[in-house]
């Protein structure tokens, strides 16, 4: 007879706490060297291997495997993971895992749904993470491999920051680098075709977006903003501390001299016309978002500073009161959190491919108005203003007023008979079985028929009637209405394929497509389109490909055109 155990099981905790380095191996910018981050709990196997990712510590340059970390070990659970150490590869695995999952959680929270990783041809995959995947000063996301690859290298012999000259530097120990690369991977999953090199804004946007997420996420590290504000307390009536942090971030990533020169400097409305290198161009977008963030920070903290100054413009000399520092930091953190949410949610409102900075501006404004229709702190004005000052305009809008920037519904009358929102499940199992998957596909088929099998709709969406329409993805979008109800909507992405650029039937192809936001009753509320039949777009893509090829960024002799990864781009080639 089997005895029932008298010990009752305990439910899994909601979070897992793990220690990470807060200093960057590339620059020592933070006095508190170790912080503990909280990430959603999931059961882990040694690696760590989870439902979403697997960390495999293979070092191809040494042809060695390193012992995987077992984060479920009670000894580690009791002390928030391994003690930070540069010489223990298990800590490297732990840190890579922690930062990847923290970033991933940020996306799931902002989007309100499961965010899956996608690999080649849009297949759902476990994202591979190689903490020591290459021996060079580089880290990159590769869509083809479905992997994040972090490099390590010898620091230069001449002293470099706080690093040991000639010592080994590991990019997987940099919070910013890991968060940046993870963002590339997640964005690729959300917008599978958005990485196709169709214009100078494409890579620049990806770089900028990854930087924005990484910077804003760093702001949320416990104690980070407090220290920064305390350190520069004397200048607190200016936004300098935040700008400083942004610039330091640029330095930490090492190769980004661009951020340093863009953030907090006088904006140049003509900058975009002459800068094409992805990081330099992306820095302009990062600077715009940063500028808006600082404007909001100033609005949020004006009252605090007035109180602290006792009616004078100046703050008292000496150290700031910890209370004041705490309040200022929490305001900055809140503003950063809002921005991060908007920036991530905006992705849902972007066209499925060929994203230009202007498209992103429209998406940000639309996403924000959907969540906060009345905008009491004038976030949107601040954003529009910061973008305008840097010459970032969307194509084909009448003015830069909020109303013109909001995405438009499709042109003309639609026929959406047969559309049923409840036909699409919102709680999709992360790993559906065959039966469920079949059901899912049937639902997609119905949705496809209701929306895309009608010439009138195709025309209204701005799609090309002579080419087949491919349903690229259907995602739930949830938001709270002004009167507090939860509203379910759908983000539907459709793609169309045109002729090849090099040869008619060979990749890379010219593509078009649209993103639709559809509400419960089948009304298409917004449509962000990239028309296939656009000579201007085609020309832009052609000349851009040419530049890429000349720089040797396209595949070499005789090989198939391949999905470019970030390896070369991150080297700044």
């Amino acid at each position, binding site marked *: 007879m089997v005895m029932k155990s008298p010990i009752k099981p305990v439910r899994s905790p909601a979070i897992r706490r793990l220690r990470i380095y807060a200093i960057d191996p590339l620059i020592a910018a933070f006095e508190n060297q170790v912080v503990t981050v909280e990430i959603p709990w999931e059961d882990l196997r*040694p*690696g760590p*291997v989870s439902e979403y990712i*697997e960390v*495999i510590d*293979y070092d*191809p*340059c*040494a*042809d*060695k*495997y*390193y*012992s*995987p970390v077992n984060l479920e070990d009670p000894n580690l659970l009791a002390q928030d993971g391994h003690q930070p150490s540069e*010489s*223990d*590869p*298990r800590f490297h695995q732990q840190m890579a895992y922690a930062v990847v999952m923290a970033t991933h959680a940020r996306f799931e929270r902002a989007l309100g749904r499961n965010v899956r990783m996608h690999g080649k041809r849009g297949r759902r995959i*476990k994202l591979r993470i*190689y903490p*020591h*995947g*290459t*021996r*060079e*000063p580089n880290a990159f996301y590769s869509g083809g491999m479905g992997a994040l*690859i972090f490099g*390590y*290298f*010898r620091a*230069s012999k001449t002293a470099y920051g706080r690093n040991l000259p000639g010592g*080994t530097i*590991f990019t997987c120990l940099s919070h910013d680098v890991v968060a940046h690369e993870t963002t590339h991977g997640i964005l690729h999953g959300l917008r599978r075709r958005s990485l196709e090199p169709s214009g100078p804004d494409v890579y620049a946007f990806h770089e900028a977006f990854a930087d924005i997420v990484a910077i804003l996420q760093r702001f949320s590290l416990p104690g980070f903003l407090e220290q920064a504000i305390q350190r520069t307390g004397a200048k607190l009536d200016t936004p300098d501390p935040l700008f400083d942090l942004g610039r330091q971030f640029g330095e930490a990533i090492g190769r980004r001299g661009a951020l340093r020169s863009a953030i907090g400097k006088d904006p140049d409305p003509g900058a975009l016309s002459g800068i094409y290198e992805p990081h330099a161009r992306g820095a302009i977008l990062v600077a715009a978002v940063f500028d808006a963030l600082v404007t909001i920070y100033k609005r949020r903290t004006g009252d605090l500073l007035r109180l602290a100054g006792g009616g004078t413009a100046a703050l008292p000399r000496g150290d700031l009161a910890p209370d004041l520092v705490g309040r200022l930091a929490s305001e900055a953190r809140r503003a950063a959190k809002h921005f991060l949410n908007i920036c991530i949610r905006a992705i849902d409102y972007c066209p499925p491919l060929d994203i230009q900075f202007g498209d992103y501006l429209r998406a940000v404004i639309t996403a924000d108005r959907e969540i906060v229709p009345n905008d009491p702190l004038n976030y949107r004005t601040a954003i529009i203003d910061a973008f305008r000052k840097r010459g970032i305009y969307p194509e084909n809008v009448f003015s830069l007023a909020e109303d013109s920037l909001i995405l438009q519904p499709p042109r003309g009358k639609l026929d959406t008979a047969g559309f049923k929102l409840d036909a699409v499940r919102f709680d999709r199992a992360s790993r559906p079985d065959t039966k469920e998957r079949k059901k899912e596909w049937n639902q997609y088929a119905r949705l496809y028929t209701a929306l895309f099998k009608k010439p009138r709709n195709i025309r209204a969406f701005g799609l090309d009637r002579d080419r087949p329409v491919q349903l690229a993805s259907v995602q739930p979008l949830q938001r709270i209405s002004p009167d507090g109800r939860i509203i379910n909507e759908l983000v539907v992405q459709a793609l169309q394929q045109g*002729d090849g650029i*090099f*040869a*008619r*039937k*060979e990749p890379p192809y010219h593509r078009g497509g649209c993103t639709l936001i559809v509400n419960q009753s089948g009304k298409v509320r917004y449509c962000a389109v990239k028309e296939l039949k656009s000579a201007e777009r085609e020309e832009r893509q*052609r*000349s851009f*490909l*040419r530049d890429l*090829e*000349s*720089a*040797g*960024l*396209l*595949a*070499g*002799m*005789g*090989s*198939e*055109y391949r999905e470019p990864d970030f390896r*070369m781009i991150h*080297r700044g*080639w």
Partner: protein
Amino acid sequence: MAERIRIRMYHVGFGDCLLITFPDDKHMLIDCGVHLQDSDDMIRPTVDNIKDVTNGRIHVVVGTHYHYDHICGFGKEADTFNAMTADEVWLPWTVDQSIPAVRAAFNAEKQLMRVLEARSDPRLEEFKLMAVSNKDSLGTLKGLWGGLRPRLRFLPEEEGLSLETDSIPGMTVQFIGPLRDNPYLSKGDPGKDSYLADMENAEQDGRSSPFDEDWIIRAEQAYNQFPTLKGKAPLEYNDLLDDFLSASGVKLNNSSLIMLIRYGGAAMLFPGDAEYGAWLDAYESTDLQAQLGDINLLKVSHHASYNGTPASLIDNMDWFVSMVSTKTIPSYPKIPKETLMEELDSHGPLIRSDSPPTEKKHYSKHSVVPGDFWTDVRLKWSGVS
């Protein structure tokens, strides 16, 4: 009496070797090479045949670019070539070392070679053959022919894109590329010396691990732990050098001499190994597009790779003979591109060295004559041009 030009394409394998014979027995040799991975058995008989056919005198010798598969023959059979005479040798300006940018590119290559040497990289030998130190072949080209120094010309010359020469009277050559003001080609120096320096730094470590031995586990243990690895290493040793080598290959191809040769009523396009970028330059900066309709023979670029021949090129051409010197070798399994072959075939006779024609065929404007290890195309036209 009808005039004729004979274009002889030798079946060298993955490489190029073409001999054009103009009326009055004037000869032009375009490239002579075969890929390292391909057997080179055919180079010797090819060169012997060239000697026989030309009676030991070539009027113009052209090296379109200095890739091994285009010029190695000049090194391998240096003795035979040295015994022949040449009136002129044509090379792209991108190998003219009196130009500072070219020198810089050559220096960058040398630096790369040092890195390859430091790590005893197996690719060193191949790279050496492709690179500047391919002295054997370039030496023959630039050296003495029959004890005499031919006129060495780096093309297109500063004076202009069009050229007529006394060596082959009646022939006009328009150079479509490489253009002298091409900003990309002048970027031969990657300007990333620091990266190469980093590489050298890393090489001192060889393949040692940055971690203590205690942390290393055996591969079998890892395969056991991670079934998704399916028992093999997930990453290959891939580094800057791979990408640099591949990028420099594209750059070299795009620096190919692209020649539009007119003689009488014939117009022939010989693009070397031009890839996509070079064609776009040509479209933008020359009147090539306006002349495409005239062309009656195309040497298909780059062994019929995926991006050697833009669709728009073929679209705007009329009826023409295409000659493809190609073969599938392990490095380039996707060459030749069959979809490209189909398109070429729909525009006129397609002659491929990997499946050469076996019978003589006569058409109204040309005939195709198979040889022992070559195929001849004879272009003919009547009357004055």
